[in-house]
């Protein structure tokens, strides 16, 4: 019962934060609402007993990436952008598409309740050793290769952004 209440609380934070983020005029406010939304997601992770993801979500997204966002927003002059009425005029098209796709998804999910194995609550004892340890074991044994190769992905991204951002020769 309490868990359900918390679920709805965190879901409200996530969705409400998301909606407020895209509707605020000031970029700083948007960024702060995004933080709220990300915190809501972190809470959802915690409810799923994924402590590691919870911590990573807070440290990386809220602590690292969002602070960078705020820095950039404050460095770039956004006063002009705030005065613009709206970037995209035909917002009702977007709304119609959203409703159509949302309806489709709702229909598909409704007619196939229980098809997602993980959507069904499984009563099982929490595995010994805790979430973080198990994650580490899996990461360094079964998923060793993707884990290592992801570092190449990051390297390419860093090299790429440096090439794109360096001063013109």
């Amino acid at each position: 019962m309490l868990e359900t209440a918390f679920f709805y609380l965190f879901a409200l934070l996530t969705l409400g934060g998301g909606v407020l983020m895209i509707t605020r005029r000031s970029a700083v406010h948007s960024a702060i609402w995004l933080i709220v939304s990300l915190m809501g997601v972190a809470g959802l992770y915690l409810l799923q007993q994924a402590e590691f993801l919870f911590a990573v979500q807070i440290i990386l997204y809220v602590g690292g990436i969002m602070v960078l966002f705020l820095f950039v927003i404050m460095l770039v002059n956004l006063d002009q952008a705030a005065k613009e009425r709206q970037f995209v005029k035909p917002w009702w098209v977007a709304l119609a598409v959203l409703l159509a796709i949302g309806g489709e998804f709702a229909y598909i999910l409704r007619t196939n309740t229980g098809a997602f194995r993980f959507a069904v609550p499984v009563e099982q004892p929490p595995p010994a050793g805790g979430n973080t340890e198990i994650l580490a074991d899996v990461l360094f044994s079964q998923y060793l290769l993707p884990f290592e190769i992801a570092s190449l992905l990051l390297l390419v991204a860093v090299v790429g952004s440096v090439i794109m951002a360096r001063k013109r020769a």
Partner: protein
Amino acid sequence: MPVNFVPSGAEMLRILPEIILVLAGTLIMIMEPLTRPANKHFLGKFALASLFAALWGSVVAHANPGPAFQNMLIVDGFDTFFRILVIVVGILTVLASFQYLKREQSDSGEYYALILFSLVGQCVMAGANELIMVFIGLEISSIATYVLTGYLRDDKRANEAAIKYFLLGSFATAFLLYGIAWIYGLTGSTNLTEIRSALMDLQTSPSVMLVGTAAALMLVGFAFKVSAAPFQVWTPDVYQGAPAPVAAFLSTGPKAAAFAIFVRVYATAFDSISARWEPLIWISALLTMVIGNFAALVQNNIKRLLAYSSIAHAGYLLVAMTAHSEIGIAAIMFYLAAYALMNVGAFAIVAHFSRRRERYLQVEDLAGLGWKQPVTAGLFAIFLLSLIGVPLTAGFFGKFYIFKAALEADLLWLTILGLLTSAVAAYYYLRILVVMYMHEAGEPASTLPPPGAGLKTALWASAVGTLILGIFPSLVLDFAGRSATLLK
């Protein structure tokens, strides 16, 4: 819990090409600041050497077939075929880039390092047996190519192309990732073999409708990467804006790897729901062929023309994919090899002809090239004839096997419409030939310097390859056929 961290020696051999390429790319990055600007071309030569080493590595890996790293990768004939294919594309691209980069005064190590890293991503895609590896490989390859597209930073068009490619590409990858998440939710696994058995098992198989939705979401991501309609809009802008050697690379390497993983996922994991995805690919194949060929008719810019032609060729490949048979897969493999050679060749000529800042890109600029530089024009003619599908060139057998596979799968209408659109295609390729041989030589053709050694090697290698595949197709086709049989 005791966990064995150390992979076995055989497993290391199975990812030898990737190891070589990553090491070489990293070494180039380290050497880059230590080389004087005049000596940057040595880095290119080093990249070339490492590509040949990786080629050798793929052969060594092929001698040790099997899964590696807990089924993350699988080394089989299919994997080896595409590894070799993308590495050869890399070699040709690097060869064609020497002169181009020197001319644009942008010779630097990062260019070569990014090509090597991009190839690592493509090799990973070719051998991935796990959706997580598919995603990581695809992203490594894509991010490197986004940057390569915008590599000439003073060029406005290149900037526009890079940002378009990046935004649309990231969006498409998000669809792919969402599809992967659905599949994980439905089958409890991201391993292709396990997904296959989960979907085959009639007792526990999840709802076909949901799996179909997931497959459709993933289709969006793959269709974008192979520039299949209706997700092809980015292709002309990106190929036009990217430096010509990069466009050569983009239109062949990443595309071949994307097709490899497209085929592997749909023909193995989603085999049991093929009735659901075949109609979708049928429609997409037809649309792609029609849009590509008809839009190419009205293009005057050669790079744009080749971009639309590249869309059309993706359409033919999708026809073979719709056939969903072993000979269809073999036809896809053969066609990709043929297409890679002729398309890299054609783009390399464009890179050479366009001159500094790519001034000469109109079809009319080629006027009289046939008389001013018979050899260059002759090689270009071979590539164009092969793109049309004239007998004795690789393109002919490529199309032949594809439509044969389609007929054997009773895709009569798709075959007829495909052949009709490829007849339309002959017009725009022949137009280039007509301009080259039958018009008075203009200033652009008269002032063309002879190609440098690297470019010459690339052109001759692709032309000879195109002809060999056109005269002795069984050399490649037999291997492709054997690998296709073993794919499942």
